[in-house]
Each structure stands twice: as C-alpha cells, then as structure tokens.
C-alpha cells in the first residue's frame, strides 16, 4: 500500500474562491493510502514545493497527489519537486481542480464536491502507480526549417550561427517568401528588399545552412531528436552546378522576356516565361522550368533554352529526387497567403481589374514590379486620382465566408500605403473604410496618426456594402457611415482590399505528417498560448512566423529567434530523456495475434519466439515485444489487445479502471 500525501493548492483565490480547500483536505484524508493531507496558498511556489519535500521526508511518502491547476501546467514542476526529495517523479498525480473545476463552476458546494472526487480519482490512481525510469535517446544535431520566408530565414540563421547545421526546405524556386514581394515595411518605411536580400544571401553562403528550394517535405517519421525526413527535390530541369545565373535563357525563350504565364511573384499582374527566376534577387539564382507550361514538355518540340544556355545547364531529363535526412528538430515556418476572394462578389474583385488586393498594390508600387513602381490602373494604365481602401475583407467575420480572427497587419499596411501614395502623388485622394483601426505596437499609433493628421487620409468608419464598377471606368463604393448612419456612395478609380490573411494552404498536410496539432483556422497550435508560444505540443516541432498566427515582420523575426533558441536548446543536448510511459507486453497473456502491431503508428511492436514459464508450464510462444525507444505511449495497442496483455505504463488498464471507479463511487 502506498503512503500518499495530498496537497491542495489555493492558487491564491483562483481555486480557493470556489472550492472549499480545507474541506477537500478533510475529506480526502481518509481515502485508502492517504497518510498526509494539507493545503497551501501556492503549491507551485518555492515555499509550496518545500512543504511537499518536507512531507515526503517526514512521512516517508511513496506517492503524491497535487490538487491544483492542470497537469499540463505544473505536472513537470511537481515531478521535479518529488525527485528532489528522492521520490520517483512518476509517483505524482495532479488533480486538475482549477481549469476543470474552480474556474468553470460557480457554486462552491458543487465545486468542492467535484474537487474531492477528482482528488479521489487521482489518489486511487497513485495507489497503483509504479516508479518509472526514463530512458535515453540520442539527438541528431541538425535542424530542419520548413519554409524559406523571413521567418524561416531568421530561424535558420540563428540556429546556424549557434553552430548547428540546419536545412531549409522551400517549395518555391527561391527563398524570400512574402516579404520579398513587399515594397516598403512599416513603421519605418524601410525598403523590404534592402533589408531582406542581405539575409537571403547570408543564408545561401552560410556554411551551416543547406538550402532545398523547389523542394517539399514528403514524409516524416521518428520522434524528437530522431526525425527521418524525406525531402522531394523537384526536378528543376536546370543543373545547379553548371548554371551561372546569367539569365539568358529567360530573355531569349519563345516569347522573349515577356512570357505568357502569369507570374506568381507578381500576383498575376505580369507574365513570365516557362523557364524563370521568380525575381531578380532570387536565391539561389538558378532558374527553373515550369514543366506544366513549357512547350518542350508539353509538345516535345522547342528546346530553345537548352540551345541558348551558354553553360549547357538546361537538363530536360532531370528527375525528382528524394533525399532522406535525419534531424533532431523541425521548425515550421510555412507562412501565409491571403484568402481567396471568390466568395466576395460584392467587392467585384474578379470583375474589375482596378479592384486589387493590398499585396497587388505592393507589387504595383515596387520599382521592380510590373509597372516599374508607377501606380497605375490595370485597366487603362492611368494614374488613379481617387483611391478607396476597404479594411477587414474577410477578417473578423462571424459567418462561414471569412475568418473569425483579426489579420492584425492590415491597419498598419493600409496606413503605410496611404502615406506612400500621398508622398509620391500628393494630389491623390485616399479614403479608408474601416471597422476599427487597431494599432498596438511600438510607434504604430503614431504612424497611423501621421496618415490622418499629416497626410489627411480620409478615414471613415464604415461598412462597405457593394463595390460597383461603372461603364465609364470609375468605381462607386457604397457604404454605410457607422457613425452618422448615412449612406455613402463614394466614386473612385481604384479600390484596394485588405484581404484576410490565412495560413499557407500546404500547412495542413505538413502538420499531419509532423503530428503537430492545428486549430480550426489551420494555424498551428502552440504547446501553451502564453508560456510555450513557439513550440508545438508535439515534441521537437517548433513554430515560427505566420504559420502560428497573424503577425508583422518585427514580431515574426523575434519569434523566429525564439524558435531558434528552443531548437538550439534541444540540439545542445547529447541525449534526450524518453517518456517512460510506454506500452508493455505481459508475455504470459500475449496471444501473438499481431493485432497490436497492426495499429501501432510507430512500428514499435515486433514479435519474437520466447521461452515462457506460465505457472509451471514451459513452452515457446510467439509474443509481442515493444521497442520502448520507438513507443510514444499512445496506447492504441492496449485497446486493440483482447486479452489485456498490452498495457501502458502510467496509464495502465487498472489505473484508468480505478479512476473510473473512484469517479463513479
């Protein structure tokens, strides 16, 4: 029989306000196995832990039950505390009487009753706990960053600078991501490429960084410290070793420099040839052939680029290549895109070329963009005189069409756009229809106020009902002024939509491969929203940039650095402690039927013929064996096993059964 100590935490008033802590102590004192019970203001505090340690020593406790916040919060703390007092850390159970009790119930009597039941379940479980020993597994000292935008670049550079090898996998032909498409950045109006390009070059030249551009992650197996990743290097059709990046191939193809394929980089505002580099500063400066649109691949005829390439680098025979690399940690930095506006017919985006998105505006204002930096209407190439910006297109929506969240960066970039336009073309009139203007951040509100006060941008709190392109080429924006309730019909010649941001659509597939969890909006979930914001709940997977949630560049860069530090912290270890809560097979009960192996996601179960002594009966039997290094403790095998031979340490059949009993008592 265990000697169990029960400690009930007040958590200030977080628990104590709704749970009668003293009463809980009184009622659990007589549970089987309990030899000591006490309460304290903050169990997790130094003093609280000291109390636990003292009690372990004084009463010779063999098990602990802490009634406090969620075990996801402090289980580790209390386990470490037990270990300090010489008690096996796995003899600790936490009864969650805060998140799952005091915070959600109002009636004190009811909450107290429930807290007692939760404590009883934990006590019943501890009675069956056995000391568990952590195993060890080695760490591969190499990291993978998925996504080569500013988030991935910064993470990779920080990891590489710390002395670890890191690979970047980018599905586009060049790294750079969204930021490379931008013109200027807020709130200081630096030129985006001026600050990004040096970083791209640094990545390319860094001895610790390997770039896999035009590549995708195909398969991930393994676990923290020991991931095996298959990377598909899509056939570029251009030999990396031979290409000098001269660009001849792109200028002298069938259609010369212009091409007939909408440029992804320029958001379709410009065309590109089938062999192309997305943009001039692309890293690596090696073009790719877009096989879907290439005449040679479509018809077997052409081959012009191969002929004109001075270094004979074009190779139509190139095949996709799959490389398998071992990593210790993986960072997801897959970035974002803006939502598809097909559902938003009222904004006439698909109807009128002069209704554009903000990111298209970025390209239109960029000196390297389709118009060479001249702001003009795509319909008639005239300079717009009257521009309307519409905010929250698809953001903060409560219907299914859009996103429920705030895209966070739109208010700032719209102010930026307005000011830049006013700077260059002061006679342009700018109206912004907004729901709210949100500018928290250092120097952000000042930035916005400059737009209003200094540049006289016309901000109207208004809900846009319809954008109506007129036969004369002008556009009428119908809106309701939310402040005076008046109907507005604003005539203009260009409309810019601040379309909502969403995670890169490819992230779902990647998250599934990584077994990283994802929220309803496809943003990756953090291990803890506040305390572990750059880690995924899946060990060894880290989050960087927009993949985790909307954020601006400074935030992205700081998160990238944070993720890098977490990765470095992991890679710096030679060995990782492995979870001792693994499956175990009772060879005397095992039938060798292979059912468990069929459901094991990690291939951790194998079968062996072993000699058994079943209560005096000796025979050779085919029985399951669990490789504890591979087992992650999911317990799928335990529910598949009919005889109960498979059991999960730490969550054993008897432990769960006894919890059920305790709750139903």
């Amino acid at each position, binding site marked *: 029989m265990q000697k169990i100590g029960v400690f009930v935490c007040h958590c200030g008033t977080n628990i104590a306000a709704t749970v009668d802590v003293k009463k809980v102590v009184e009622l659990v004192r007589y549970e089987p196995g309990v030899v000591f019970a006490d309460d304290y203001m903050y169990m997790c505090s130094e003093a609280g832990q000291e109390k636990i340690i003292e009690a372990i020593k004084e009463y010779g406790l063999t098990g602990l039950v802490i009634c406090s916040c969620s075990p996801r919060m402090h289980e580790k703390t209390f386990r470490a505390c037990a270990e300090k007092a010489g008690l096996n850390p796995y003899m600790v159970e936490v009864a969650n009487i805060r998140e799952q009790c005091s915070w*959600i119930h109002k009636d004190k009597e009811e909450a107290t009753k429930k807290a007692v039941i939760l404590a009883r379940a934990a006590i019943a479980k501890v009675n069956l706990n056995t000391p568990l020993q952590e195993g060890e597994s080695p760490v591969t000292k190499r990291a993978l960053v998925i996504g080569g935008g500013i988030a991935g670049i910064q993470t990779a550079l920080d990891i590489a600078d710390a002395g670890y090898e890191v690979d970047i996998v980018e599905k586009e032909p060049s790294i750079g991501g969204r930021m490379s498409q931008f013109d200027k950045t807020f709130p200081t109006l630096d030129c985006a490429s001026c600050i990004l390009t040096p970083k791209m070059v640094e990545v390319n030249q860094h001895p610790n960084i390997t770039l896999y551009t035009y590549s995708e992650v195909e398969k991930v197996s393994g676990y923290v410290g020991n991931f095996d990743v298959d990377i598909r290097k899509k056939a570029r059709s251009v030999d990396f070793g031979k290409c000098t990046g001269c660009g001849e191939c792109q200028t002298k193809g069938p259609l010369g420099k212009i091409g007939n394929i909408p440029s992804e980089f320029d958001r379709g505002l410009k065309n590109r040839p089938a062999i192309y580099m997305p943009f001039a500063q692309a890293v690596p400066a090696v073009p790719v052939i877009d096989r879907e649109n290439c005449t040679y691949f479509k018809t077997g005829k052409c081959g012009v680029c191969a002929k004109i390439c001075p270094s004979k680098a074009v190779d139509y025979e190139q095949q996709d290549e799959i490389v398998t690399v071992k990593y210790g940690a993986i960072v997801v930095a897959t970035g974002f895109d803006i939502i598809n506006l097909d559902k938003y017919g009222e904004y006439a985006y698909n109807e009128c070329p002069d209704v554009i998105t903000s990111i298209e505006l970025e390209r239109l204002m960029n000196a390297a963009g389709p118009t060479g930096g001249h702001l003009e209407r795509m319909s008639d190439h005239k300079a717009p005189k009257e521009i309307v910006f519409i905010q929250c297109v698809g953001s903060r929506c409560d219907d299914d069409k859009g996103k429920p969240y705030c895209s966070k960066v739109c208010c700032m970039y719209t102010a930026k756009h307005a000011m830049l336009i006013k700077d260059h073309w002061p006679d342009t009139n700018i109206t912004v229809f907004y729901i709210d203007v949100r500018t928290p951040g250092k120097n952000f509100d000042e930035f916005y106020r400059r737009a209003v006060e200094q540049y006289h941008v016309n901000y109207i709190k208004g809900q846009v009902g319809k954008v109506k392109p007129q036969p004369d080429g002008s556009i009428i924006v119908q809106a309701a002024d939310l402040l005076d309730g008046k109907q507005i019909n604003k005539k203009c010649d260009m409309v810019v939509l601040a379309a909502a941001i969403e995670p890169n659509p490819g992230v779902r597939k990647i998250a599934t491969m990584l077994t990283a969890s994802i929220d309803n909006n496809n943003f990756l979930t953090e291990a803890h929203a506040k305390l572990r914001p750059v880690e995924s709940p899946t060990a060894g997977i880290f989050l960087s940039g927009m993949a985790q949630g909307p954020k601006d560049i400074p935030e992205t860069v700081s998160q990238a650095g944070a993720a890098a530090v977490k990765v470095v912290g992991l890679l710096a270890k030679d060995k990782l402690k492995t979870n001792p809560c693994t499956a175990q097979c009772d060879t005397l009960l095992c039938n060798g039927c292979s059912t468990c192996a069929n459901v094991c996601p990690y291939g951790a179960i194998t079968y062996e013929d072993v000699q058994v002594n079943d209560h005096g009966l000796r025979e050779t039997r085919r029985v399951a064996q669990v490789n504890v290094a591979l087992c992650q403790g999911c317990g799928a095998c335990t*529910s598949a096993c009919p005889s109960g031979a498979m059991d999960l340490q730490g969550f054993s059949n008897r432990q769960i059964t006894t919890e059920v009993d305790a709750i139903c008592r």
Partner: protein
Amino acid sequence: MSMNEEKKEFRPLIVAFCCNWCSYAGADLAGSSRLSYPADVKIIRVPCSGRVNPMFILRAFERGADGVIICGCHPGDCHYSTGNYYARRRMALLFSMLEYMGIENGRTRVEWCSAAEGAKFSKTMNEFCEKVKSLGENVRLGDLRCKN
C-alpha cells in the same frame, strides 16, 4: 438520504475521457476562458482517444455513470497520427451495439475537440449534460450492487 435531497433535481454522473493533447488541453482552455459547464462532468486524462478501451466505458456505466463521452483530436490531427481513427471505428461499433441492446443512445458520445476549442468543449459538455439529464438515470447498464 434525507427528504430534501430526494426532491432535488436529477444530476447525471458523466465521465469524460479526454486525450491529453487536444481535448484535455481544450478543457483547460475552457477553464482558463471561464466557459462553464456542469460539475457533473468528470474528466479522465488519457494519452489518446485510441487508449479508451470499451472496457472502461462499460465499467463506467456499470459503476453508475449516466453518460460517457470520449473526446479526442480531430481526425487527421491525432498527436499519434492515427489513434483517433481507430477510436472512431471502435466507438461507432460499440455505440451501435449499445443502441441495439436498447441502451438510450444519448448516453454515449464522441466529440473531436482541439486544444484551441475551449468554447466547443464547454458547449459540448453543456449539451451532453442536458441530453443525459433528459434521459434520466442510467438503469439499463448499471450494476445493482453499485446502487444505494
């Protein structure tokens, strides 16, 4: 039992098995967001919805639970890749069998609930409690020895 207590409204006993990675975290989020649900719900933490052996569910009913709900990660989001897929099949078959035997089918439920869905967790629990409450005490699956 005093006369007073007898008159009290029926409060169901509900056992919720929550996977550690999504639903338990979702329950925590419901807690930290103060999204209340009845105290009748008692959560048991399991590593994965695939860990929930049908034995546990029947055991809960045997010992007097009025409803049992299993919460796991959304299909495709299982921390262990596939656990919830197996759970989904197991529970579909088990629940169908219980229904076949004449057990009210509102007493069992599976809900996929992510770590970010505190609101959904709370809503689900409120709904489920209401449902079980409307069904009344579980007399068909309980063991007489566990009754008072």
